[in-house]
């Protein structure tokens, strides 16, 4: 029963990935046969300012976007797990952006972010004069200011936390009712219940989701940076590792070099996952979960 | 210890079966036989290996040594589905996505019994356990007792060679348990089926069983009819496990000297056991004791005493003649009412 999956896993992912990672140690331009280069690519990466910027961008993105996404999903799951007025449509609404195909999603935001004619800034300008907001400030320059552009990419990614939301909602609904009854008998406040009951009980799922989001954050940033900001504003405000690798490999034909960047990216991911897992284990030991 | 008469042609025979779970031996050289049409209750405390025994019979756990025979067939190497056994799980293991009727017919449907026939047999089985009115419901809508009946019906429907019941009554409340106990016994008598029933409840075992096998640490401690188990417990362990409150066990040289003629073989280190109802309060030459507390259970009362030597003793007395807390009493017992055990091996001595 595992056979098709194993064929797919090895043939379509592990083997190709191994080939690419092996190419990290070669000089390969996609055209001529690769030649052994040892660690030359890696040592060049260390001094490459663009790579460093891309790395920083990716790390900052992960550090900001992952907590935001998970917290938003958790908040929504806790808010909407119980039946109440409007909770059903609200649940569907929270999922909708996740359903939009990536490219369409990129195109949508490209228009929403349009600095002059986009709905977001037009809304922000309501009540203001001369193209300023009501508070007399310039509206965010989503596509031309480095900080605003980074925020824009994060904003885009935050809206698509539907998958995380669904899992957390299910996890919350699966929690046993009796512990909440005990908490009610002890007259615990909402915050106490959250901190001492809900959070510890949901911690395993949360940990899993954070790991997943961390891994995926490198992928989340690709299409927005590719379609919406094109890696800019200049020089490299939203050039994330994924885009850096794509450009280096496919536009500048330096596949070996791009593979080295991929290697670094994967090692970082593994490190982040292991670190996070250890932190979680300590937490789990503490709560004896 | 008891040398079981093993015939491989019985309803169910375990011949020197050992089994391990996660590297720990759970069953050790187990020899046991259940006659055709017999209801054997496997009794023992938690961790004695009772459930493992059933799972080995069903083929859900492998044996490390020994052989399993069902209705004259060696099934040791057969997979569960080929052994023609049915099992009632402690959790009932009903499929929540199927209706009661579908649950009962499940075993038939997966064996490609035609739908109409399967439905008919499921209805019959449901009627036998008094669950015919539940057929259209789903497990989520049933009470504990109803689920138990459905689980039984699912076991019945296939007419297996052996029924395996894994603590099926333990999740029911007392009244229901008493009722289901009786129904289960009646069902067995009606079907004449071979059944192995696992429980840790000694009352259930005594009431239900044709024979009882007392299990301790993966070994059979004693096999016998309820009478034999009660009246001639083969060891101190069996004596202590069967009966509530438990049998009093005191050192043979100890603080109480039973009256009457001692049985033969009282030499060496011995222990004597006697049930609370055998204790005589107010025996003039009895041992001195004080009353710690008294529990009244209807017309009877249990007096918890401490002998001068410090040993605790429980006595059953009529509630009307019960002593009061703090009273000084004299305690006696007849040799005829005692059981003598070897102090080192814990085994019954002589008769």
């Amino acid at each position, binding site marked *: 029963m595992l056979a098709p999956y194993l064929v797919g896993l090895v043939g379509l*992912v592990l083997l190709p990935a191994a080939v690419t990672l092996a190419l990290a140690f070669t000089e390969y331009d996609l055209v001529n046969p690769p030649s052994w280069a040892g660690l030359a690519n890696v040592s060049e990466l260390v001094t490459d300012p663009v790579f460093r910027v891309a790395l920083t961008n990716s790390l900052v993105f992960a550090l900001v976007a992952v907590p935001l996404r998970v917290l938003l999903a958790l908040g929504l799951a806790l808010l909407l797990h119980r*039946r109440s007025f409007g909770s059903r449509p609200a649940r569907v*609404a929270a999922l909708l*952006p996740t359903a939009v195909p*990536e*490219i369409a999603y990129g*195109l949508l935001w490209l228009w929403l972010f349009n600095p002059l004619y986009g709905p977001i800034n037009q809304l922000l300008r309501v009540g203001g004069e001369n193209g300023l907001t009501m508070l007399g400030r310039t509206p965010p320059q989503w596509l031309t200011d480095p900080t605003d552009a980074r925020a824009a990419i994060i904003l885009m990614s935050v809206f698509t936390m539907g998958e995380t939301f669904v899992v957390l909602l299910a996890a919350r*609904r699966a929690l046993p009712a009796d512990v909440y009854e005990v908490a009610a008998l002890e007259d615990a406040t909402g915050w106490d219940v959250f901190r001492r009951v809900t959070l510890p009980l949901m911690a395993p799922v949360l940990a899993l989701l954070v790991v997943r989001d961390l891994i995926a954050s490198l992928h989340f940033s690709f299409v927005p940076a590719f379609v919406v900001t094109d890696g800019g504003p200049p020089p490299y405000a939203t050039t994330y590792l994924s885009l850096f690798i794509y450009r280096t490999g496919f536009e500048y034909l330096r596949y070996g070099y791009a593979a080295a960047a*991929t290697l670094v990216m994967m090692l970082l991911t593994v490190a982040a996952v292991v670190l996070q897992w250890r932190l979680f284990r300590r937490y789990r030991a503490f709560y004896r979960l | 210890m008891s040398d079981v008469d093993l015939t491989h042609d019985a309803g169910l025979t375990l011949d020197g079966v050992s089994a391990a779970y996660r590297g720990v031996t759970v069953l050790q050289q187990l020899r046991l036989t259940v006659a055709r049409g017999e209801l054997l209750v496997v009794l023992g405390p938690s961790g004695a290996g009772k459930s493992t025994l059933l799972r080995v019979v069903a083929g859900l756990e492998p044996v490390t040594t020994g052989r399993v025979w069902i209705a004259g067939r060696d099934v040791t190497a057969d997979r569960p589905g080929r052994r023609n056994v049915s099992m009632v799980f402690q959790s009932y293991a009903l499929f929540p*996505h199927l209706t009661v009727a579908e649950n009962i017919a499940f075993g038939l449907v997966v064996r490609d019994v035609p739908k109409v026939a399967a439905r008919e047999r499921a209805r019959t089985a449901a009627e036998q356990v008094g669950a015919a009115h539940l057929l259209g419901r789903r497990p989520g809508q049933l009470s504990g007792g109803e689920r138990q009946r459905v689980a039984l019906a699912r076991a019945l429907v296939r007419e297996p060679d052996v029924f395996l019941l894994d603590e099926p009554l333990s999740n029911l409340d007392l009244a229901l348990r008493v009722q289901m106990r009786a129904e289960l016994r009646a069902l067995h008598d009606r079907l004449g089926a071979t059944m192995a029933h696992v429980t840790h409840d000694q009352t259930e075992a005594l009431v239900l069983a044709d024979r009882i096998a007392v299990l301790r640490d993966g070994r059979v401690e004693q096999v016998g009819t309820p009478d034999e188990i009660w009246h001639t417990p083969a060891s101190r362990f069996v004596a202590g496990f069967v009966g509530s409150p438990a049998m009093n066990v005191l050192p043979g040289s100890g603080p109480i000297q039973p009256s009457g003629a001692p049985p033969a073989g009282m030499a060496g280190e011995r222990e004597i056991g006697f049930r609370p109802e055998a204790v005589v309060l107010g025996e003039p030459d009895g041992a001195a004791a004080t009353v710690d507390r008294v529990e009244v259970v209807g017309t009877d009362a249990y007096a918890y005493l401490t002998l001068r030597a410090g040993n605790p003793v429980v006595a059953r007395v009529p509630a009307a003649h019960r002593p009061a807390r703090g009273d000084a009493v004299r305690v006696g017992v007849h040799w005829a009412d005692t059981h003598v055990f070897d102090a080192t091996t814990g085994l019954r001595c002589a008769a």
Partner: protein
Amino acid sequence: MGGRASGPPPLSGRIGRIWRALGSLFVLLVFVPPLLLLVSGSLTEPGLPPSPTPQVIPDPVSTAGYRQALAVGGVLRAALNSLLVAVVAVPLSVLVAALAGFALARLAPRRAALIVVASLVALMVPATALLVPRFAIFRVLGLTDTLVPLIAPALLGTSPLYVLVYYLAFRALPRDLYDACLVEDMTPMGIWWRFALPMVRPVTAAITALTFVFTWSNFLDPLIYVYDRDLFTLPLALRSLSVLDPTNFPVFLAGAVLATGPAVLVFGLAQRRFFHHDDQTGRNRP
């Protein structure tokens, strides 16, 4: 929804309900407008100088954007291709993921752990690292310039994550139920089909929806593996619309609406199932 409220509300009674309703309203207000704007934008007349003030209902309402998207972008043809890919790939992918997840759950722990780790590693591989080697594989198999490379990811359940989700779901099912199946002499395939799969319907619904969206919006794969314009899928068609000028936004928004519609529909249908789980053992993931 089953009405199985998990415990009493931390905020008691009416105040709690009001807060919750307000919260729901807020969620609606945040999440719905982007999509409404997508629709309203797509109905604007293309090529006009952009309006300096916000317009929720375009004036004039025009379907020219849709007509141009269909004509210029070949959106219709692309939609058919996308549909073809999804119709083959999604069921296949769910099948593979469910089978593999089940087999994993029944495997000896040590072997299962090996495959789980391999799957986690596979999750960490960025898509860009796979393009070139996969292209070579597909070329050797003579499959470039067909839709097969777009269907191929179904072989690994689209994403190893979905296999792991199934694995966890199947593992969470009570052991007694598996044993009951074994006593009834069922094959692993039979247990999977008659017992395990029906028990995790919410998971299947969720994974089907996610797989659909993933397949439907797959962009990099067709970009690399598909040449023939007649084989273009929707994301590629949209990509060619995205090079249009910003003021032609109604055209590409129209394309985006056309591409989004089916995905939203599938999600809408599936969410009823994965939010609706009243059977007690059919818990969604652990």
